[in-house]
């Protein structure tokens, strides 16, 4: 698209800087050591804080997973008995009840994540396609669609919790007036709880997909579409062959972020059901929370957190490897 001539070199350099590629920063270009030291001084506060809030806790977290850190040892951690890998063995022994409930919680979380990310992407993509083209009242919809994302998480979830109440909730009221049920279903216990949790999570997270995709759409230059239109491609063909491929980088990051947030989600089940959700909605963060703060077994809780982290690192690594390579080839 853009032709690079030697004449617009400065422009090209500015673009390169904007993209964040290595700039022409030459240390010591007449400025001496103070300039070379500057970046280290600038990131020093961040490094100190990172050590305090991330690195040290992670090291402690891994250590915790190897000791029998039950309630009695929380204030005397140095005396906690070393147990090696036994917490890991317990978590991964799927034939035992404890390991089995960990596996079950992992499966629930996987299904939950796939559904929430999938539906959120579909909603967000549809809304972005529709609202990208200006029409009367389009600004109003754009604003409205962002509200669930902007609201404090618990406020939105508590509203849903009220709507899902058995006797005085909207959901049963509507289902009864439509003649679909007799209006006395429980939505927050049993197997229904899982579906309630999915709907609430989608309500909150699809606007994020919409926000990112709308921004991505606005970065696609119009002339690409014009050229396609001249060639006789209809709107659906344009969406398939121009819009979706062009959104690839945005999708790559957005889906990864949604995946991580949903997989690590604690708020939705905790606000809907409390510290001990129904088995169908026992997703992993709350499961670990329960083991740690309800059963007071920090060693076991930490071992499960470390396993969760390893899983996320592997999945994220594979995801970036596969999709980054493919988009580079494209």
């Amino acid at each position, binding site marked *: 698209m853009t032709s690079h001539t030697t004449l617009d070199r400065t422009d090209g350099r500015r673009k390169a800087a904007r993209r964040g590629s290595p700039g022409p920063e030459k240390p010591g270009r007449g400025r001496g050591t103070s300039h070379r030291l500057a970046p280290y001084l*600038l990131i020093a506060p961040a490094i100190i804080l990172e050590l305090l809030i991330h690195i040290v*806790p992670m090291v402690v977290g891994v250590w915790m997973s190897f000791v029998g850190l039950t309630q009695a040892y929380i204030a005397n951690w140095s005396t906690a008995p070393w147990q090696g890998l036994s917490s890991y063995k317990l978590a991964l022994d799927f034939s035992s009840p404890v390991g089995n409930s960990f596996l079950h919680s992992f499966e629930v979380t996987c299904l939950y994540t796939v559904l929430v990310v999938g539906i959120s992407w579909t909603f967000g993509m549809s809304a972005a396609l529709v609202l990208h083209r200006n029409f009367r009242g389009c600004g109003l919809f754009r604003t409205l669609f962002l509200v669930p994302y902007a609201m404090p998480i618990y406020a939105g979830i508590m509203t849903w919790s009220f709507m899902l109440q058995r006797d*005085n909730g909207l959901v049963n009221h509507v289902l009864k007036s439509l003649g679909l049920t007799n209006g006395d279903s429980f939505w927050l216990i049993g197997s229904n709880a899982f579906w309630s949790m999915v709907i609430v999570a989608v309500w909150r997270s699809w606007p994020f997909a919409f926000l990112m995709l709308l921004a991505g759409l606005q970065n696609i230059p119009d002339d690409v579409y014009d050229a396609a239109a001249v060639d006789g491609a209809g709107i659906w063909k344009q969406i398939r062959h121009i819009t979706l491929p062009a959104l690839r980088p945005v999708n790559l990051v957005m889906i990864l972020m949604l995946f991580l947030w949903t997989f690590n989600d604690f708020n939705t089940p905790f606000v809907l059901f409390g510290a001990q959700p129904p088995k169908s909605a026992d997703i992993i963060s709350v499961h670990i929370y329960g083991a740690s703060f309800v059963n007071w077994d920090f060693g076991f809780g930490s071992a499960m957190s470390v396993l969760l982290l390893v899983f996320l690192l592997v999945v994220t690594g594979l995801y970036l490897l596969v999709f980054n390579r493919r988009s580079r080839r494209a």
Partner: protein
Amino acid sequence: MREPVSFKVFRVVVLAVLTTFILVPMWVLFTSSVKPLGDVQGKFEWWPSHVTFQPFKDIWSTVPLGKYFLNSLIVCSISMVLSVIVAIFAGYAVSRWRFHGRSVFTTTILSTQMFPGILFLLPLFLIFVNIDKVLGFTLLYQTRVGLIITYLTFSLPFAIWMLAGYFDGIPRELDEAARVDGASTLGTLFRVVLPAARPGVIAVAVYSFMTSWGEVLFASQMTSPDTQTLSIGLQSYSTQINVYWNQVMAASLVVSVPIVIAFLLLQRYLVAGLTAGAVK
């Protein structure tokens, strides 16, 4: 551009479904907050048959909402200010210099964002309890100081990541011109780069405030009745005997409105920052 009928139908369906999906809960939130307790406990009604603003008065006395509000305000503001200040320096360094250890630093920042909060909650809990034990008084566990520190675990990496992306969008020629005029590194940052990045800084501030304002996990373990924030405090409208649903809804409305308005006013900048960081 010509739109076929199929696209027009698609638009109507999408807008109708999604608007309903969003508006119904908001309508319930709003109308339930102006119903008397008896009405919200009875059969559901779309239109409130008796409108009352009493719940908006009662919310402040049923539970110490004022205290929760103040706690949230203090914790969220301080962690926001801290993470924005630290992120301005770090983001500037990452954006303008290629130094040794840069990629280790950025990789750490990026990856800690994906770690589950529960991973940090357990060790921080243990560390805080034990530091307090050594000190002999409560400095960290269940205090505002401790909560501010834990909130940095998610607000700081995000702030650094977004600001570095935003600074990348500001032409280096500006820095170079300032240097030629004899400005120091900090002088350049504060007089030239920062003013140009003001929308980004505001967006990062709003975003980190917003995430802290809605934080539930840390708040559930790292607070005492005195230091509880809104996210946990609001759950105390449900007692063993009664759930004051009208007050829950009124309080939810009160704590949501300011943050939603701020977000909607600033979302343009937020999107610019998010996508600048994302597409790199």
